[in-house]
């Protein structure tokens, strides 16, 4: 197994474009996770600045989703640390875990909407269950949030099965941001969408993240998406971060693995996963 080309770049100056400070919101140190014999994360080190938008790229099965789930606390890593707002959250349980998880909103790959509830109740779910808001107030907030993602109130009483893929993603995004979280995680937000809808979703992500003032971490394979939504990009390969830099430098990374990935070449140093899991 060839070892990763380690040309990790340090971020010196804060990002002028996003206006985020250089304060670290989320840090991963030596994160490790294996499923049985398969090692998925093999010492991931990453820092995400407050209010910045980081996009993590990498081949299928390289552990991007697992990393996201370790950050939010859906999975517990085998080793290493997850540090959020200076607090180590790696092995939190119970009430402490609940407290930290409230800082997050997550958009899942297939939106993961609750089939048995209408759209407004999906969007309001975190408000009713998490914040104990009354149903009527929550419904109003839900309709406001749907407007932010470009959906009118007529959608509110439809069921997820009646929506197109793009609309489901938008509802999923609305559900993730309804309670105004500090951190938004997006798992392949544009996968499966046509190019126009993908651009619409990307624009929504940029605007809502800015409006809510959140820190965003996205996973995607869609390089066009990367260029639209990222302030910084990190590439994961064989369980480690092999490159991390501002999106403007992605074409001049000097890293052959990054080059092969972003230009979509079949030939190159990257050894693709053949089996899943």
């Amino acid at each position, binding site marked *: 197994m060839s070892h990763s080309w380690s040309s990790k770049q340090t971020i010196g100056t804060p990002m002028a474009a996003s206006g985020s400070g250089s304060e670290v919101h989320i840090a991963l140190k030596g994160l490790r996770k294996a499923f049985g014999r398969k090692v998925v994360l093999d010492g991931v080190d990453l820092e995400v600045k407050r209010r910045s938008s980081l996009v993590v790229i990498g081949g299928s099965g390289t552990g991007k989703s697992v990393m996201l*789930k370790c950050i*939010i606390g*859906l999975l517990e890593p085998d080793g290493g640390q997850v540090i959020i707002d200076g607090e180590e959250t790696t092995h939190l349980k119970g009430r402490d875990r*609940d407290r930290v*998880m*409230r800082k*997050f*909103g*997550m958009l*899942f*790959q*297939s939106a*993961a*909407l*609750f*089939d048995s509830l209408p759209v407004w109740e999906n969007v309001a*779910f*975190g408000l009713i*269950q*998490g914040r104990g808001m009354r149903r009527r107030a929550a419904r109003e907030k839900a309709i406001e949030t749907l407007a932010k993602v470009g959906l009118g109130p007529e959608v509110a009483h439809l069921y997820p099965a009646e929506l197109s893929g793009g609309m489901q993603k938008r509802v999923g995004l609305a*559900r*993730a941001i309804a309670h105004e979280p500090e951190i938004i995680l997006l798992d392949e937000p544009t996968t499966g969408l046509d190019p126009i809808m993908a651009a619409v979703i990307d624009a929504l992500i940029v605007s809502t993240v800015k409006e809510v003032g959140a820190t965003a971490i996205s996973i995607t394979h869609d390089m066009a998406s990367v260029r639209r939504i990222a302030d910084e990009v990190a590439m994961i390969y064989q369980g480690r971060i092999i490159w991390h830099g501002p999106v403007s430098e992605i074409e001049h990374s000097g890293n052959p693995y990054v080059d092969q990935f972003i230009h979509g070449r079949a030939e190159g140093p990257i050894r693709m996963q053949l089996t899943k899991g």
Partner: protein
Amino acid sequence: MNPLAQIGRVVLHLFAETGRLVFFIKDAVFIGLSPRWYPRQILLQMIRMGYNSLPVVGLTAFFTGGVLALQIYIGGTRFNAESLVASIVALGITRELGPVLAGLMVAGRVAAAIAAELGTMRVTEQIDALVTLSTNPYRYLVGPRILAGVITLPLLVVIADIIGIMGGYIVGTQSLGFNAGAYLKNTVDFLQVQDVTSGLVKSAVFGFIIALMGCYHGFHSRGGAQGVGRATTNAVVSSSILILAANYVLTSLLFTE
């Protein structure tokens, strides 16, 4: 393949599965039934499990009561025991056939439905989504279903008891020529409260088993549609077998002198 290794693998798998189930039961009861409660969910599950199972349970009970009357009559002529038909139908239905058959029929319906619904939620990441929205899946999904099972199954069995005895009554008076008044008197004369209550205790346990196995297999679904299908089948089979096993244990506990 080494046959010992194969046996070993099966045995280890069985132990691992049993352990996983025990941990799940612990979480289902201690987390799932603790506050915070979701009254709407509980009501919804009670309607799905209880009210919607009425037709199945009613039909099962009716035909079982009728068949029982027939069999006791025909068999009983060997001992000149035809007059026992009414009482044996009553005892048989309330003690055994009501709870067990209702349990098995509801297991087939409800355990499968629960496993399919929760399994689909699991493979589409809806259960993960619940967690990210500050909602504990044990409290929101499992607890209400278990509570609904324990409450609605005894109610279903009460109805099954009545309909079953009525089935026997109809066969007895229409086909077997019993006198209506005498039949009813015989039914009630030898029936004791504990016959009925033991049946209700059993059915509460069966309700618990049905909901539990549906939730367990649903929660642990893996691998897409095929995985959900497997979970559904396993839920029905395992809850049916556990109902029959629990029936034996409960019967011996409830009826020892």
